[in-house]
């Protein structure tokens, strides 16, 4: 899929996002908000797809990493005060890097575990983050972090979404990145073919955490308010559902699922309490009827480069 000119698509994506950003004052504020939600969801889902889809490690802690990045970036912005706008990209980057660092610490011990165990450890990690946030006065504790400047716009959101898609796709479509898929298919065979499976898993996990942190920073400066309850395990499940719905390891499908699952609740406002029931049913029926993912069309795995 990605030819040598793949970088060109990245620049086109970023240019479109920036152009849209300049036009955004003319847009309806509600649609603008939903649009940014969609972009953030794309970053979250595509980055989780590297871990859960391509590399085949089942993580349930993505909301935790989002919280780490979000709180950290927001905290920096609040400390900076007036100059927060100038340093916004750096705050986002710092949030992403901090989330990646935490991802490294969580990943190294827990990626020795397989399947269900990894899911449980990452689930536990996500809860720890939430509880820590709930009890840390410096970031607002249970009442949440208020007054975060509104700096997230269409340009940043979709520019970074384009960057995420590019990075994950470029990685996977290279000889180096084929290692992630080999780990997914057969760890023992991968290891004996000279692929350091532990390192690949950690790299996937840290990369995923980084982008979750970036998404968290965007989210914080979009909603202008962070509450620990917003990052509970249901949020992680929501992102996992996007990945499963889109088809594990299929970036285009996952993007489509992220868009759909962000827009759907907007149309179903009246029945929003039943959203989780809807997700559960969706997954059950999907596993029975289309285990390869709703948006997975019969594609042969493309060759690299």
């Amino acid at each position, binding site marked *: 899929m990605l030819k*040598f000119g*793949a*970088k060109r698509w990245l620049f086109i994506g970023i240019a479109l996002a920036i152009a849209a950003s300049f036009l955004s004052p003319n847009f309806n504020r509600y649609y603008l908000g939903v649009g940014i939600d969609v972009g953030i969801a794309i970053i979250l889902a595509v980055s989780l797809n590297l871990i859960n889809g391509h590399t085949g490690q089942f993580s349930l802690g993505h909301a935790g990493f989002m919280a780490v990045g979000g709180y950290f970036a927001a905290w920096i912005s609040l400390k900076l005060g007036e100059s927060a706008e100038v340093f916004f990209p750096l705050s986002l980057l710092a949030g992403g890097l901090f989330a990646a660092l935490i991802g490294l610490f969580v990943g190294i011990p827990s990626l020795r575990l397989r399947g269900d165990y990894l899911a449980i450890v990452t689930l536990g990690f996500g809860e720890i983050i939430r509880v820590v946030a709930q009890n840390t006065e410096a970031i607002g504790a249970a009442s949440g972090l208020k007054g975060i400047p509104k700096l997230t716009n269409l340009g940043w959101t979709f520019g970074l979404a384009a960057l995420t898609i590019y*990075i994950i796709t*470029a*990685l996977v479509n*290279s*000889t*180096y*990145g*084929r*290692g992630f*898929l*080999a780990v*997914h*298919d*057969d760890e*023992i*065979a*991968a*290891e*004996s*073919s*000279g*692929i*350091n*499976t532990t390192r690949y898993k950690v*790299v996937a996990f840290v990369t995923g955490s980084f982008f979750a942190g970036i998404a968290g920073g965007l989210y914080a400066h979009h909603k202008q308010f962070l509450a620990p309850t917003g990052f509970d395990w249901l949020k992680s499940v929501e992102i996992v559902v996007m990945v499963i719905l889109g088809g594990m*390891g299929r970036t285009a499908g996952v993007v489509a699922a992220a868009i759909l699952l962000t827009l759907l609740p907007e149309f179903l406002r009246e029945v929003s309490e039943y959203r989780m029931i809807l997700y559960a049913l969706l997954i059950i029926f999907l596993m029975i009827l289309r285990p390869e993912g709703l948006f997975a069309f019969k594609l*042969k*795995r493309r*060759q*690299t*480069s």
Partner: protein
Amino acid sequence: MSEPLLELKDVTIRFGGLTAVSALDLTIHSNELIGLIGPNGAGKTTAFNMITGVYRPTSGQITFAGKNTLGIKPSRLAGLGVARTFQNIRLFGSLTVLDNIRVATQLHNPTGYFGSLWRGKNWKTGEAKLEKQALELLEIFDLAKFRDELATSLPYGAQRRLEIVRALATHPKLLLLDEPAAGMNPAEKDELIRLIRFVKDRYQLSVLLVEHDMKVVMGICERIAVLEYGRKIAEGTPKEIQCHPKVIEAYLGAAAV
């Protein structure tokens, strides 16, 4: 003879109360073709797993090319030159035939994470080189026509061959083949015998072969070691093994004489 390529000295492994391999001594020199035979459960695959670093022996010593390999991960051992195939084929099912080989050239991949993202000049030449290498290998083993097929969609014999090619892509000095003839018909077995000989001569490597098919083993091995209940009961040329009373009793059966 020169210094041995692989040396197992007094290697023992216990799983709980079970001693799977006990006090095994085995030496393989460069460019030798050794067979390892024995009844089911004798510890042949366990020996493989210790040589390739999947299991760590309870006691004893394994040296490869003069290096103590205890505690070295399989991926690093692959880098040192130990490659293997599996009893039950383990190909990368979501990858194409070409990518199965390409991913195994990872050890010789000049670009890593950031290089693959930046996609600069080095990456391009590197990728082109790896692809060329992989294609050449596929061509030699008559698999190039399948290059864009998913690996697991190939016919059985081709999958076995592809596994051997994948092992060769790591540039091994020692190739371990775990029952490569399993499930093959006589014609395919003859083909396999030719293939193993060809691989050994062309790539100048040593081969350790676990196999139940006596025609294959006796036909190509220069030396054969026999395991029973984790112990080596005999070692010698195919001729010697065929008339060895202990081997006949334990494994070959009287009819084979």
